[in-house]
């Protein structure tokens, strides 16, 4: 009796498994007939994936992929998102660990080197000749610069016009003292001069990084001396000049009562509404600002680092290709690689692609041939600085992955006066000497 019950259970199991395998078999058959009927393998759609790490343009990216697919039948582009809370590298490396890397992955510029052994060499691509600045790593172009971005002090034109009584010219602010005088005028006109966002990435990888970018030696060399412990920040003129400016900004900060409570959305809304005249951030802030004020006039002002009016640093914005796309060569088939290259070409050379780059993604293309008129005021301002050669490196591209978190926290401490300048300098130095 017992045996027969066990037997019947076994029988049931067998029956189930037969059913399952039958289903599987059916599917395989269907696929086979499908392929047979279409006959030609080359007409089968090539599926490629694009890991997008600019989460603010996720939707636009998907639209672009659809438009590209329409223009290029036979290629399907799937856009994978990397959420805001996850770093792009994390997402990319987990995709690699799962054995399903994205055909194209967009990463922060500083992280491309980690994937150098997995990235396809793009040196032979047509768009390399159109690059405004070379984008090489060890003599090879392995990544596609997706967006040129920059940062500085973002101002509201209308408010500043009121404050100075006439049209405000950003070129007049070329020293820390000039900036402070401007702050005083703004305050007198009844508006908060500046609002400082307390985001650690902004303070650490953007503001503090200005100290690396403005040194007399190239950024990488200077970071080398920081790592070896040879650089002495406390006596460094640029570092001190930068923090002098920061002290002025702190003094006129709209959120002075509770500086750490000021978040990005608030700074954007304040400047857009004209409740604060300026904030420190980059051109990406425009998406947020236009939510409040779609037609507002905004511009960039460099962060002065000295009281010497002739200092080039005082009239230059930090500009660089912050997002880079590389094509995987470990798992992607040659067809997929070609399709991916085609997609990048489309962004650079096709009129529709150029248009999307500029007006949908709101990025400033790194390519000379793209002359599409920029539609947003911050991008226009940035491009003007770039074209005039008034740029310094985007030093945040050269720092380790936890720089923003560790030194962003240090900058936050400085923002709320938890540490003084020598202590901040020693925190920065000890961070760098701990980098392997």
């Amino acid at each position, binding site marked *: 009796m017992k045996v027969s019950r066990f037997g019947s259970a076994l029988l049931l199991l067998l029956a189930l498994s037969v059913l399952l395998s039958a289903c599987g078999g059916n599917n395989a058959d269907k696929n086979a007939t499908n392929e047979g009927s279409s006959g030609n393998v080359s007409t089968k759609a090539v599926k490629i994936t694009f890991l997008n790490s600019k989460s603010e343009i996720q939707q636009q990216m998907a639209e672009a992929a659809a438009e590209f697919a329409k223009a290029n039948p036979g290629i399907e582009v799937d856009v994978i998102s990397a959420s805001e809370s996850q*770093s792009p*590298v*994390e997402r*990319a*490396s987990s995709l*690699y*660990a799962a054995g399903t890397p994205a055909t194209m992955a967009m990463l922060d510029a500083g992280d491309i080197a*980690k*994937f150098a*052994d*997995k990235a396809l060499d793009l040196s032979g691509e047509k768009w390399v000749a159109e690059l405004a600045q070379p984008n090489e790593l060890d003599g090879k172009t392995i990544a596609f610069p997706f967006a040129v971005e920059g940062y500085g002090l973002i101002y509201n034109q209308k408010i500043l016009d009121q404050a100075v009584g006439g049209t405000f010219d950003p070129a007049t602010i070329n020293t820390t003292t000039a900036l402070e005088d401007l702050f005083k005028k703004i305050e007198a006109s009844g508006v908060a001069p500046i609002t400082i966002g307390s985001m*650690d990435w902004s303070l650490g990888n953007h503001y503090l990084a200005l100290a690396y970018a403005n040194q007399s030696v190239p950024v990488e060399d200077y970071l080398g001396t920081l790592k070896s412990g040879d650089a002495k920040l406390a006596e460094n003129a640029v570092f001190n000049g930068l923090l002098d400016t920061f002290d002025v900004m702190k003094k006129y900060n709209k959120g002075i*009562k*509770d*500086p*750490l*409570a000021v978040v990005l959305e608030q700074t954007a809304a304040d400047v857009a509404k004209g409740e604060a005249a300026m904030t420190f951030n980059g051109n990406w802030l425009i998406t947020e600002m236009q939510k409040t004020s779609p037609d507002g006039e905004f511009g960039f002002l460099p962060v002065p680092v000295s009281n010497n009016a002739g200092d080039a640093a005082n009239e230059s914005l930090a500009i660089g290709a912050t997002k880079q796309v590389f094509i995987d060569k470990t798992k992607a088939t040659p067809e997929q690689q070609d399709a991916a290259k085609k997609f990048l070409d489309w962004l650079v050379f096709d009129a529709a692609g150029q248009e999307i780059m500029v007006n949908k993604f709101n990025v400033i293309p790194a390519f000379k041939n793209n002359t599409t008129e920029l539609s947003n005021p911050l991008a226009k301002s940035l491009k003007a600085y770039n074209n005039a050669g008034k740029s310094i490196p985007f030093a945040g591209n050269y720092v*380790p*992955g*936890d720089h923003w*978190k*560790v030194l962003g*926290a*240090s900058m*936050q*401490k400085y923002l*709320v006066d*938890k540490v003084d300048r020598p202590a901040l300098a020693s925190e920065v130095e000890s961070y760098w000497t701990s980098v*392997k």
Partner: protein
Amino acid sequence: MIAEKNRMKRLGNQVFFTGPTVLVFTAVIIIPFLYGIYLTFFSWDGISSSMPFVGGSNYVEVIQDSKFWASVWLTIKYVLATVILINGVAFLLAYLVTNGIKGENFFRAAYFTPNLIGGLVLGFIWQFMFNNLFTAIGDKTGLDLFSKTWLGDENLAFWALVIVTVWQYAGYMMVIFIAGLMSLPKDVMEAAKIDGANGWKRLSRMVLPLMVPSFIVTIFLSLQRGFMVYDVNYGLTGGGPFGSTVMASMFVYDKAFIRFDYGAGQAQAFVLFLLAALITITQVYLGKRMEVEA
């Protein structure tokens, strides 16, 4: 022959019932655990194809890393505060809702609900409360305590974490205590009552000693969760202000996945595991000795 058949059958049964569990347990716990220990002997960024062997230098680094030990110390303080408060509050709630007050079931459900919300969501909800609601109250009432956001102050941010954790787990532990309270032997309690023991005496002399098994479970759970806390830490303070509330788990995560130092991160995780295991095992062992028979 028969014995042989029986043994085969027993083995078959064992495989049938425990096989799937063992398989899954091995695949998702044992193998990653061993692989993690393996990783501690290498220097790897998680991406690169080369993975040089570095011996025990990752462990040396962990032992010398004062920031890691600072985060461990902070975690220990957090665990102390949360274990005491969670169990205290939970027991109090359980005692209240088993005393036959009106709407018992409603209160039980209400206290338990926070536990159904994920730690991450909870963190964001409370972040909003601390940043906007409490500061608004501070503005209206002029209370100094609420004039600034708690999350901007190192000490208050720590207590904000403790409060949210207690709020999250007290209801859960309450359920365990309720089960314990309901199964207290009625005859013993009645005898105590007849003998003239007042409420406090009954609580301290009868109820609490008999509840030791429940306490072992709840303290174990709250200890273990306290040591491993990440989600609330991430959602509420994100380690801020200025890195002052980075608990051990977050420190390990940052090391491995933000700094991309898998070897050192894994070594820290292993040290943390040993520490948490040591403390929880000691707790269970000591707790068992305090158990009494009714």
